[in-house]
């Protein structure tokens, strides 16, 4: 009797949904920004759970079409059954790259930290090269980086060195003596370190203004460029290094990230996709900067003596921010500031997805994905477009000519930071 057999089964629902949890509802394909923009992409349902049923460790990976997945994770956000669609795609892509060998571009884009370090050390030269048509043509031919894609400007003075010069006090000691209320460790990420130091300076200023001591532990690339460029082992190596360093922090020190995707790696992907031992407690005390400031506000600890900032802003929520599952804390925060007029735009993915839109064969697709957002931004005509994610900002600026900023820049201005 079936019912007798049923009596012996357990009712436990698995934490992470296995591939069998996919009901083939096709919800993921309907929201996939890539599938929306090209009919050569079969979509997350087919490349993720459906193909997964036929993948075996012993057989060579079939990777056709996998590289068109930009890694935005909207499929996972959308899945009513919480299937880890992205993880299936990333693992299969990684296995294929291991079997066939990685391309020069995989290597270069996976090692963005190394590249940025070099770019920062040779900043004037690197910036000149990145804007020189001949150099860009050579880059397109040799590495496959599209010549039209503006590459970020490198800065000679890194955030790390700036911090050492300006904040060398033994802060953890101060926290212990009750001079400051909280201590946070800032995971600034490669972007702030090599490209936008000012953003890091503002984060430090805002936190210190609120009586919070900021420490900057030694850190490695979060690993996301390696994840999306078929190199999970490299990402795991980076991640493990970060987990080791961050695990050593005193228990009362929270970790703050100002980059949406770095934060998501620390919070979620280290313990899930990368299966790094000890990653869970690190993820549990990692906060996005705006999430953290909002938490302070709710606890009555945020200094809300804001100066008015007369400006009209448009907020674009990055895809990876949606994966945080925390709403849009930046919008709540900015509405506390007098003078700020904030509109929100909900046109989905901007198209760049980190290094995806940099690639020669993906550039046009990336601009097509972002076209709805670009139109909305142009129509809105606001002073600036806000996005928590740095590559979203690059893409919006490139696609519209509009100015863009991280939301904390407005908070810093409201605190009188110049």
């Amino acid at each position: 009797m079936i019912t007798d057999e049923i009596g012996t089964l357990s009712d436990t629902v698995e934490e992470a949904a296995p591939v069998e949890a996919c009901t083939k509802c096709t919800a993921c394909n309907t929201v996939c920004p890539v599938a929306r923009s090209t009919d050569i992409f079969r979509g997350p349902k087919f490349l993720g759970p459906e193909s997964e049923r036929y993948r075996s460790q012993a057989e060579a990976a079939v990777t056709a079409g996998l590289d068109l997945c930009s890694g935005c994770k909207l499929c996972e956000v959308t899945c009513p059954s919480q299937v880890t669609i992205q993880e299936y795609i990333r693992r299969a892509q990684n296995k294929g790259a291991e079997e066939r060998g990685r391309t020069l571009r995989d290597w270069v884009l996976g090692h963005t930290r190394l590249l940025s370090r070099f770019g920062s050390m040779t900043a004037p030269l690197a910036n000149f090269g990145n804007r020189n048509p001949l150099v860009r043509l050579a880059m397109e031919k040799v590495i496959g980086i599209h010549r039209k894609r503006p590459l970020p400007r490198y800065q000679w003075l890194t955030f790390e060195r700036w911090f050492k010069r300006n904040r060398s006090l033994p802060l953890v000691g101060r926290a212990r003596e009750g001079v400051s209320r909280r201590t946070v460790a800032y995971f600034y990420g490669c972007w702030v370190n090599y490209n936008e130091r000012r953003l890091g300076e503002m984060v430090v200023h805002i936190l210190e203004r609120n009586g919070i001591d900021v420490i900057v532990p030694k850190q490695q690339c979060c690993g996301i460029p390696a994840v999306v460029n078929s190199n999970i082992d490299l990402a795991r190596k980076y991640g493990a290094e970060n987990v080791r360093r961050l695990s050593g922090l005193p228990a009362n020190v929270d970790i703050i990230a100002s980059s949406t995707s770095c934060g998501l790696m620390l919070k979620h992907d280290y313990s899930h996709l990368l299966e790094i031992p000890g990653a869970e407690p690190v993820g549990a005390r990692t906060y996005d900067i705006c999430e953290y400031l909002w938490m302070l506000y709710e606890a009555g600890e945020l200094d809300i003596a804001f100066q008015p900032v007369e400006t009209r802003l448009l907020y674009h929520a990055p895809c990876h921010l949606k994966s945080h599952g925390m709403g849009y804390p930046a919008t709540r925060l900015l509405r506390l500031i007098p003078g700020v007029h904030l509109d929100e735009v909900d046109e989905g993915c901007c198209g760049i997805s980190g290094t995806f839109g940099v690639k020669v064969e993906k550039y046009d697709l990336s601009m097509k994905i972002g076209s709805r957002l670009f139109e909305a931004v142009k129509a809105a005509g606001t002073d600036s477009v806000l996005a928590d994610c740095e590559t979203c900002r690059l893409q919006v600026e490139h696609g519209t000519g509009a100015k863009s900023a991280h939301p904390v820049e407005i908070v810093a201005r409201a605190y009188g930071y110049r």
Partner: protein
Amino acid sequence: MKADIAVVGSGLAALVATRTLQQAGRNALLIWPGLSSLYFTYATVDVLGYSDLTTTQPVDQPEAGVAKLIEDHPEHPYALAGLDALRSGTALLTEWLRDAGFTWQGSLARNLLLPTAIGTPKPSCLVPASMAAGDLRRTEPIVFCGFHGYEDFVPELAAANLSRSWGGDDQSVRAIRVSLPGFEPGRLFTSIDIARSFEDVAFRREVAGRIRREAAVDGVRIGMPAVLGLTHDMEVYSSFAAEVGHPVFEIPTLPPSVLGLRLFDRLRKHIQESGVEMVWAAPAHAAELSDGQCRRILLKSAGREQPIDARAYVLALEDTVDGALRAGVHEVIDPFFHQALAHHAVPTDRTDESLFKPQPFASVGYRVSNRLQPIGDDGRPLAGNVFVAGGAIAGYDPVGSKSRGGLAIATGYRAAREAMAA
């Protein structure tokens, strides 16, 4: 995170509840546990299609039908929500649809009778204007038009079925098929892909020409699968119908529902851009209770549990459609109170052997008080500030009675009102 009133869900009930709160000047937080059930359902607003599950006689006047149902069944969710909630909620939704740029037709006074994809007549109350020309009370002959290689809509089947129940001297049904440029045999595609292609002017002009040549005669109307554009309900439809030269009507097909996608995406965007915050990707999985009140609910967010601390909560989960309720082997569990839900049964009792009979699993859900609070076995509310709306209410079959939309509206509106007063 603190909130005034938290609405959990992404179906029509959640949207109506959120809009009700927004219009009343309250601060709603919409928590989205996965894609809207509207993607998987018919996405017309059906208020009452059949007065009970045994009759085949469709309801003509839905408002009167609901009034009678309330009189006869005081325990029915419609009775708990009240006829006023249905009226007010419908007015609110109708106005919202207009504000968000939709063109819909219908009213509580009278149902439309529209052919389904398999050619059966189906009563619906509010529908997109792109469906209205299919009303079977009109007499023009119908030509069902399908596409070669697309089997979610089989025009021959629809025509054969409909000609059995409908038709007369002037009423005839016929089937044609045209091929779609770019959709060659062997290509993997869904309705969504076709709908995207229809947004292209040259594509739809070409298809309209092919249909005009196939249909050949004057005075007919063309019934097509609902694939006429993905982002707007009328732009593609109007220009396409003009090119075809006959009245055209859309017929919803299998999931993913193009009509549901249009509806949800636009309403979600509209409510979000008008200032309602949404938390994406965060399934709720526990409620913390004390003194008969829900103090907070916990979401599964990246890295940790995210507490949502609201004054009141609207649980507008859908039923079996959107994955909100988890059916284990022995019971169906709700994600908040971890209680076995009413009308649960072992799997063998959850379904009827016949696919076409009413299914017991359809009525699984929370038992609720007359204020729509979830109640326990003793009949007392599990939490005084929690209100349930939509398909997660126990004891009715939204599919069989064709009342999913109306109940979502009535209970969504009522639950929001109760939450405001709590």
